[in-house]
């Protein structure tokens, strides 16, 4: 168990700055997810944490110890790799105990530890097989077991579920959450999948272009996105964000300093007839496409503000003609010119913002 502290970390590859002056603290025992699009620097941060890359600037502390110049094996961390990186010529047992053998753990103790861990991850029957005889999910478990058996202070997981099929991924997600609860160790998890980030982390760190966009609990990221990037990254489909001009024609007053406004597709309501609900901006719209997903329907509609996604949980509207979209004013998220959220701006002051939009 350990707290991880990054202090003004930067990483430059051939004058290309991939991590820009990041400072953050990963709490002891937390399940922290680094999430962002490819090339955002999340894997680089992970590799610096593990010691495979040397940061260009800054300090890394693990459990109060400065680890800048410490070799990976001396940092008391274990890593699960995206492609598992199992030793192909060794059996499952060989894979799990390789680290212990290198640390000169006596054979009997090693055997006990391996058997114990194999029981936890459900590999007892496969200990004498080679990795190429295992399924994807079993390989994943071997990789986890290999990490667990060393009883590290920190677990680092680099997109560990991305090679699994959808069903197994959901299952492993739950298993990982349970594992984290059971071990109570600090987990640092990298993914580009926002669903994984939301469902697994107790803390999400959203990264883009080498900079932290937001660091908060999943629900906080969803409800109060720190900036436009975080708003558009989390959520499926992403938040609808439009410029100030588009909203000026809908709202009575847009406060100073607000340069764009967004709302989540699931917060807007869609009806076939005008309803004139107070505290909602109603827009006459045209349905362009719809995706029926069973429990929900995602509409793409066009109106005077622009193209937007609406996510609805009621029965799908069969026709593609005219409809009315109502956006609750309290669910609007104002953003400043630099993209950051403008927190204390209440747009619901626009009481009668009901407008029948001209398309």
């Amino acid at each position, binding site marked *: 168990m350990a707290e991880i502290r990054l202090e003004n970390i930067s990483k430059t590859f051939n004058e290309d700055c991939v991590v820009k002056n990041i400072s953050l603290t990963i709490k002891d025992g937390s399940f922290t997810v680094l999430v962002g699009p490819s090339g955002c620097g999340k894997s680089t941060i992970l590799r610096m944490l593990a010691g*495979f890359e040397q940061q260009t600037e800054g300090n890394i502390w693990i459990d109060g110890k400065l680890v800048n110049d410490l070799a*990976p094996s001396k940092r008391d961390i274990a*890593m699960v*790799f995206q*492609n598992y*990186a199992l*030793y192909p010529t060794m059996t499952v047992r060989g894979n799990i105990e390789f680290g212990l053998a*290198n640390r000169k753990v006596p054979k009997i103790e090693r055997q006990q530890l391996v058997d114990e861990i194999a029981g936890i991850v459900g590999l007892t029957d496969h200990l004498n097989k080679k990795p190429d005889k295992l399924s994807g999910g079993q390989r994943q478990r071997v990789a986890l077991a290999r990490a667990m058996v060393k009883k590290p202070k920190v677990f680092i997981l680099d997109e560990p579920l991305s090679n699994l099929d959808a069903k197994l991924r959901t299952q492993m997600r739950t298993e990982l959450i349970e594992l984290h609860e059971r071990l109570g160790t600090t987990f640092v998890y990298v993914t580009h999948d926002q669903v994984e980030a939301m469902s697994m982390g107790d803390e999400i760190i959203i990264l883009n272009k080498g900079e932290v966009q937001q660091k908060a609990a999943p629900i906080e990221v969803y409800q109060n996105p720190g900036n436009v990037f975080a708003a558009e990254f989390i959520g499926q489909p992403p938040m609808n964000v439009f410029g100030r001009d588009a909203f000026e024609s809908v709202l009575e007053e847009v406060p100073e300093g607000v340069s764009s406004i967004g709302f989540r597709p699931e917060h807007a309501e869609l009806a076939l007839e005008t309803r004139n609900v107070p505290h909602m901006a109603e827009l006459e719209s045209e349905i362009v496409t719809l995706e029926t997903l069973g429990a929900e329907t995602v509409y793409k509609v066009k109106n005077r503000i622009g193209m937007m996604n609406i996510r609805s949980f009621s029965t799908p509207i069969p026709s593609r003609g005219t409809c009315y979209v109502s956006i609750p004013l309290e669910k609007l998220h104002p953003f400043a010119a630099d993209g950051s959220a403008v927190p204390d701006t209440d747009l619901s002051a626009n009481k009668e913002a009901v407008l029948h939009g001209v398309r």
Partner: protein
Amino acid sequence: MNTSPIIKVLNGLGLLMLFLIFAIPFIWMASTAFKSLGETMTFPPVWIPETLQWQNFVDAWNSGPFLKYFINSVVVTLAILVLQFATIIPAAYAFARYQFPLKNFFFALTMVCLMIPSQLIFLPVYLNLSSWGILDTVWGLILPFATSAFGIFLLRQSFMQVPEELLEAARLDDATEWQIIRKIMLPLAKPVLITLALFSFIAHWNDYFWPLVMTTTDQARTLPLGIAMLRQVEGGASWNIVMAGNMLLVVPILVIFFFAQRHIIRAFVYTGVK
């Protein structure tokens, strides 16, 4: 796809022809080794001798210090094998996995060594060995082949195919560089190692040119030289004795082929694909 019986037969005949082209010299050698001197001269030639002349082998063996030749051959071939592996493995690992100044230059230098035929450099090497005073010793036959540019090249290619994550995982598992080589790299490169061992063994077991140049007495001569000298005894060549000697030379290789067939086929296919 259905192949017509005619094509199958033609195919089979073609393969049989190919087989005979390669096999007849060997069969001829084996047959001659068992003939009497008279039978080697008869025309039309006989394929199966009337009585098997086992005596030929004894004569061949006794016609010179063949035990010495044999021991020299074994010592030289094995020493070359061991030295080559001892030098090739670290070099290939370094070229494949480390970054160091002038790496590309040194690798190019290695590749140049691969391209120079030994006939071109035997004279300077001869002078060099002469100044060290190890001409006409087994060392003179071993040291020039203590490493192999081809081996470094082939093993480097194989090492480069190992994913970096595997090494990182091993480093996290407290493995030293040597443990990484021994426990992870070498087991993965096994087909290549077998290929290299075979190439090296066959090349140096059969080598005639280098021992011919470097040795002047029976002190360091190897089997191929001894057998070549069988031809020169007592004026006319007793081909049955020469062939019996050749059998002695070839049998160890045949034995290895017999035991390592599976690996050999895989190894040669492997190099073919590369």
